[in-house]
């Protein structure tokens, strides 16, 4: 697992989020998002919101938009399975919604329990009317998030960037 590479894309993504004027970052912690979360916490202009369950994040960002702020929701692919009902609200009101999803249950997965949800993530999002951008190249993550942020905030859509497990690396069961 290339730790340096991981930090690099997080930095670039963070810059993109700042440029898109993201001020609320809601998250359920995930190893793949660790650096991004750290940067969000360290940045005084960003309000980090740690959630108990991912569905809370969709609602928080609806409120953020109502109050004039843009936000992003960071989660793992399993969390996608918790937000489907709440996405109905974002869909119906056409709230912009930017989600960055680190994938599990695919490339090199060690935990079989992650596989069903990981394999269903993309189709479930699409069934909910979310536009999905998938990225497997570290060098393409930042530009993908930038495009997704535009589509979300300017185009007024729900957009998810799925960051492949190949990029975030896979955990070692023995660690």
């Amino acid at each position, binding site marked *: 697992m290339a730790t340096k590479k991981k930090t690099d894309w997080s930095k670039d993504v963070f810059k993109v989020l700042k440029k898109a004027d993201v001020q609320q970052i809601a998250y359920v912690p995930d190893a793949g998002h660790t650096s991004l979360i750290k940067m969000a916490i360290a940045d005084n202009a960003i309000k980090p919101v740690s959630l108990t369950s991912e569905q809370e994040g969709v609602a928080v960002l609806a409120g953020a938009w109502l109050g004039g702020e843009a936000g992003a929701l960071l989660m793992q692919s399993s969390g996608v*399975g918790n937000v489907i009902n709440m996405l*109905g609200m974002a869909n119906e009101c056409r709230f912009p919604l930017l989600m960055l999803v680190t994938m599990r249950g695919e490339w090199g997965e060690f935990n079989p329990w992650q596989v*069903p949800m990981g394999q269903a993530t993309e*189709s479930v999002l699409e069934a*909910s009317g979310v536009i999905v951008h998938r990225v497997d190249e570290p060098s393409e993550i930042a530009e993908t998030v930038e495009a997704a942020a535009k589509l979300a905030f300017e185009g007024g859509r729900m957009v998810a960037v799925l960051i492949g497990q190949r990029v975030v690396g896979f955990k070692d069961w023995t660690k």
Partner: protein
Amino acid sequence: MVSKKSKSWHWSQDVHQLFKKIGIKQIAYVPDGGLARLIERVQADKSMRSVVLTTEEEGVAQMAGAWLGGQRGVLLTQSGGVGNCINMLSMMQECRIPLLSLVSMRGEWGEQYPWQVPMGQSTIPALEAAKVIVHHVDQAEKVPETVEAAAKLAFDANRAVAVVLSQRIAGSGGQG
């Protein structure tokens, strides 16, 4: 079938009897207008334990536990509740634990409330994406036989199965 067409007949009678016949012991639900009559019947039945949930995903987990402990159960939910269950359903898939659920639809046939439409329209694709076998039924007379077939598929063939009851059967339900 003739008796089913009599005015007093309601599908929930036959489904309740079916639940008794196949040994359903646990019923988990978040209250719903379309399933209200079935819920009233099972609540009144001392041979089953009905459990009101705060959110539907709790019910999926409870059904896993029921099966692990040697009992059969049924999850009753409105279509919106399906959207709360998708992640928990992965457990049923991964462990191949039987799941029988009855889903009453909103956001489709004759819906008056726009906010119900997005989730209603994604209910079946989301279930199918989560590898749940879906039986859609839109006539009251066909509900009992569909539930019976779904129960076999669930408990005998160890699959997650949802009987999706069209809004055409239940009517447009509550206002919310």
